[in-house]
């Protein structure tokens, strides 16, 4: 089941088009919204929350229409905004419990749940301190706690690791990974930080200039076209390169005993051809797999 269905969505700030005719399906699990600053990630999240009225097109979140069922959408989702934000004059436990009450939870339940999620977010020791006195990392965790208090089915995380030191970043990412895998919470994580997406997400949507440039699973987006294969031999072999060329393929690059081989379009039995070439060259194959690139390479290619 899709978490969100977006069809021909256009969003404007005045006359400036921030998102243009965007259509995509957001699957369950942890989905990364990846894109450079100004790509329209935050604007898309705000529209899905019902903060912005679409200029045209529409979307559903968890089956609810963002135009007409905003309250129902917000009943079932949580938002961790990008900017530093808190409700002034409250301690962390009051803040999180208050967020729960705003979601319709009874006061006693909201308070009990506030303690639970603050414990989970690692703020149990500081829960009675005013949030104004918190460090940036603690404020981020408090924001996550208020988004989780009512047990949302979907969590929007907008640049959740902004301004965090490496340790705090690691903690927040671990929590996001944990929540979004096996705990019944879907996450849409907006970030321009590729390692954050790579570490937490199963699926990626690459955005630029308000449009979707690429969308796939993390593995899928990292794999090059199915025409390229990486082969590792026991020892370097010039004979292997010749056999590959004779089979109609091309060695794109080689480093010591590793080769990247590209086959022409329409080749169906590439792996068999590679094994055959290795046998003919009397070379021992250590590994053979589709070529992969880093998410950074994939991202740069998508936004080119």
């Amino acid at each position: 089941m899709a978490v969100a269905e977006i069809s021909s969505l256009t969003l404007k700030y005045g006359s400036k088009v921030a998102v243009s005719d965007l259509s995509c399906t957001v699957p369950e699990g942890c989905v990364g919204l990846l894109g450079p600053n100004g790509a329209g990630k935050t604007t898309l999240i705000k529209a899905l929350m019902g903060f912005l009225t679409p200029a045209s097109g529409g979307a559903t979140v968890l089956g609810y229409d963002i135009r007409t069922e905003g309250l129902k959408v917000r009943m079932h989702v949580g938002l961790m905004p990008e900017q530093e934000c808190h409700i002034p004059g409250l301690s962390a436990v009051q803040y999180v419990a208050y967020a729960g009450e705003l979601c319709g939870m009874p006061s006693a339940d909201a308070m009990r749940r506030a303690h639970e999620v603050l414990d989970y977010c690692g703020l149990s020791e500081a829960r009675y301190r005013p949030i104004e006195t918190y460090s940036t990392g603690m404020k981020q965790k408090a924001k996550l706690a208020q988004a989780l208090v009512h047990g949302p089915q979907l969590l929007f995380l907008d640049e959740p690791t902004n301004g965090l030191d490496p340790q705090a970043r690691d903690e927040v990412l671990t929590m996001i990974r944990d929540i979004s895998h096996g705990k019944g919470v879907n996450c849409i994580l907006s970030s321009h930080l590729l390692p954050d997406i790579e570490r937490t997400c199963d699926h990626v949507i690459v955005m630029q200039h308000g449009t979707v440039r690429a969308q796939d699973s993390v593995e899928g987006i990292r794999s090059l076209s199915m025409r390229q294969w990486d082969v590792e031999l026991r020892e370097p072999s010039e004979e292997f390169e010749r056999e590959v060329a004779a089979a109609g393929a091309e060695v794109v690059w080689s480093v010591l005993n590793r080769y990247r081989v590209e086959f022409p379009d329409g080749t169906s039995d590439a792996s068999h051809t590679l094994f055959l070439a290795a046998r003919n060259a009397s070379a021992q194959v250590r590994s053979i797999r589709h070529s992969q690139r880093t998410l950074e390479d994939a991202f740069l290619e998508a936004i080119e």
Partner: protein
Amino acid sequence: MSETAGPIADLSYRGYDGPRRVSIGRWWPIAKNGLRVTLRKKGFWVLVVLAYLPYVLLMMQLFVFSRMPEGAGIRFEEMLAQSYSSWYWVLFVALIVGAGSIAADNRSNALQIYLAKPITKGDYLFGKWLSIFIIVYAVVFIPVFGTVLYAALSEGMIEFMREHGWLLPKAFLIAAVPATVHASLLVGISAWNRLPWLAGTIYAAVFFFWNGFTTIFGSVLQDRLSDGMSATVQHLSLQGVITGLGTNLIGVAQRSMFRPETQPLPDWRVLLVLGFAACAIGLFLARTHIRAVEVVKG
């Protein structure tokens, strides 16, 4: 027997499957939080004590006069109107409660938190308005009602009810006037600011200058207008609306510092229209500025 090393409690994330209501009273948690935050402020309690002082003095006067022959000819309504008109402390209470109500949320980007929950802008605005209204209402109502009750008990309940019986139910309306005016205008000004002190200063400035201007303007026109018209003109300000409608409800005009003789009451219909207009403007200003995202005009 081996010792257990890890925690026995399950500290991993668990979902919430308890009850959740989407009721029409979504504004109540907001109002309740406003009350909770205000009641924790020491300055608020100092101002409450100061706002109650005129009524304490009035009760002392009533106590003394009740022991004089024939009550020294006092009129209870006149004294109540005079105490009700000592409005400065109520204004300051309203400022401490309301100036930061939305401005502080603007400064800390709290609107994104509020509006990401299943509440509407209307719920948010009404919750904020109600928290100011309840506090100002209580600050005005308790001493007015208490004074009327004290007078009734000391004068003899039956005799008092015969002469001033309507004052008890009227106390509910009397308190609603300043509470409505202050709450409506303060949410409007607060919504347009990010600094509570600035919102408070703007409201106080508008309040004092407008009041001063109409007082001077009314005095200048005093000789050219009838007494009733002059009284109405002098009340064409926020404070004028509050005292004018309040004294109309009490039934006796406030005595002027410069003219101790009995004054005519201002026209309540004009003041009601002005009060409604001021409140509507305040609420409209707030409604237009409450949003979860900055709107960029391009």
